[in-house]
């Protein structure tokens, strides 16, 4: 190759290198990222439908004896319709596990409709054009335009550590869905990325979706998603922590750039982990264990409340998932007040809480109920305040 040809190649490649730099200006991730943490009642969408005050309990999934049901998630559409997704099959990780979805129309008397199948290993394999051995955790969420998103786990080889994430979307409230799209997130065979908790919406569109890595090391991460699931989807990934101790982050935004991540521990010292960011996830404090908040190696659910408070749903035990409680923190997670016991029965399992705060300000909590059903508990601020007062009264006594 002549000297001139080499020079031409070097200059040519330098010019081409400039293209991604120019394109960076149009990136959805350029500029200051901010969480959308305004009171949810200020979010766009139709006015919240009338609902009964206080607390309301029900089930999002029907009772199906012999079927293992787990890992529920819930989303609210702009018209107040609720959509829940979970997985069900003969057992966790079985090839017959399917991801199901049910909807509850807006209205005080409305009840959950029958579930319908969203994803099976066959449909995932067909849509992704690759072998899928089994499907797992799924998280459903909605954007302001009413589009539903589903991010779910598929496994081609091995167990959960062989997972990868996929996304699909629906613009008609879950009637029809775009084909699944695989998200390349890890340099090592794109393995070991899982999802569990609700995303944080971002100002200007997009989501920060908590995910985690679970192969060799175990650590929490964030998947940044922007654009329609069936179109020009843009994604990237960042890290909350590293090591082998904490997974399944639940992120609660406290301000446009501030958030707390509460984490499941998988280390010997069984306590809920917590990390803070004050620059919209660009950096995180080291994860610290919350004294007095035990964790039996199980997922927690968290949501931000008005006034900078945090609401946590968790298993109050170091060894089992036989209870599910609510706790509130007014100091960014430094201290917690237990306000309610939702479930408690020795030998039973109540796990994987997932919470959202609706446009009307109600909290919707779904969780695995005895591995048979997905329980849905909703309550408003008045019920919450009453519980806080009762707990404080109990403490004072």
């Amino acid at each position: 190759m002549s000297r001139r040809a080499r020079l031409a190649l070097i200059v040519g490649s330098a010019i081409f290198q400039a293209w991604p730099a120019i394109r960076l200006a149009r990136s959805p991730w350029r500029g200051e990222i901010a969480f959308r943490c305004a009171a949810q009642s200020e979010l766009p969408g139709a006015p919240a439908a009338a609902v009964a005050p206080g607390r309301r309990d029900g089930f999002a999934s029907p009772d199906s004896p012999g079927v293992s049901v787990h890992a529920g998630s819930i989303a609210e559409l702009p018209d107040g319709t609720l959509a829940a997704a979970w997985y069900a099959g003969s057992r966790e990780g079985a090839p017959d596990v399917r991801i199901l979805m049910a909807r509850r129309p807006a209205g005080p008397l409305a009840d959950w409709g029958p579930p319908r199948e969203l994803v099976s290993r066959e449909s995932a394999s067909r849509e992704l054009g690759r072998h899928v051995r089994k499907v797992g955790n799924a998280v459903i969420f909605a954007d302001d335009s009413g589009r539903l998103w589903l991010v779910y786990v598929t496994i081609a080889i091995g167990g959960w550590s062989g997972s990868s994430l996929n996304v699909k979307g629906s613009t008609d409230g879950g009637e029809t869905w775009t084909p699944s799209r695989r998200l390349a997130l890890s340099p090592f065979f794109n393995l070991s990325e899982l999802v569990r908790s609700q995303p944080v919406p971002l100002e200007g569109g997009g989501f920060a979706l908590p995910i985690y890595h679970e192969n060799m090391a175990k650590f929490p991460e964030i998947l940044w998603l922007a654009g329609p699931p069936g179109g020009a989807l843009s994604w990237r990934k960042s890290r909350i922590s590293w090591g082998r101790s904490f997974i399944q982050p639940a992120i609660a935004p406290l301000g446009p750039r501030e958030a707390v991540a509460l984490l499941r521990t998988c280390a010997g010292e069984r306590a809920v982990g917590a990390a803070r960011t004050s620059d919209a996830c660009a950096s995180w404090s080291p994860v610290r264990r919350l004294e007095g908040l035990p964790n039996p190696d199980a997922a927690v659910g968290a949501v931000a409340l008005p006034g900078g408070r945090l609401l946590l749903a968790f298993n109050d035990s170091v060894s089992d998932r036989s209870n599910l409680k609510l706790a509130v923190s007014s100091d960014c997670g430094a201290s917690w007040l237990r306000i309610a016991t939702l479930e408690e029965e020795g030998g039973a399992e109540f796990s994987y809480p997932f919470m959202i705060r609706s446009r009307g300000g109600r909290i919707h909590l779904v969780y695995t109920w005895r591995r048979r059903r997905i329980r849905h508990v909703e309550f408003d601020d008045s019920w919450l305040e009453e519980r806080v007062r009762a707990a404080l009264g109990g403490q004072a006594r």
Partner: protein
Amino acid sequence: MIAWAFSFVFPMLLVLVLAQAAAARLGANLRSGRTALALAVFSLACVAAPVFPPVGLPLARVLAGSGLSASIPLLALVFSSVWEGFSGTRLLDDRATRASRVFGLACGLLLYPMAMGLGVADPYSLGWEFSPLWPAMWAVAAALIWKGNTFGLVLAACPLAREAGLLESPNLWDYLVDPFYVLASAVGLGSAALRRSREATPAHP
């Protein structure tokens, strides 16, 4: 769609390497255009036909499902080997092969331990969008091209391949390096070092 179609290229090249070896053993003339075409068609048929009845997926997609996604340097190395078999011309000479091995091993050692959670830094995050990784990689490519090392051209092609969306991943790292490439680089460098040390050891009288 581009990434889906491109996922057939690496498995096809691998089958071609095996087919070339088998054909050479059977005494076929690999330099003949007809043989080359026949082997290429055979290899494409091997990876494109649905060979996995329970799922009905082509072999290439079965491999893709297992996470096998070849980086551009690995593709270039295998393509160079196939090309050499058919034409006798080496696209990547010894210098380029050595440079590719050093690059592959260095990238693997830098990327994988940290990306898999060993340490707080995550170099993989540099690959999502334009970052210092781009100019750094260009500097390496430019230096190699200036020295007349053809591996520089392979490196310069990586961001091009990313812009074209040849792989599923939008991360530049996945175009630069993959686990098989790192393993092949380590084995190649190790065996070369072993060979050199054997040559340097004087033979016993």
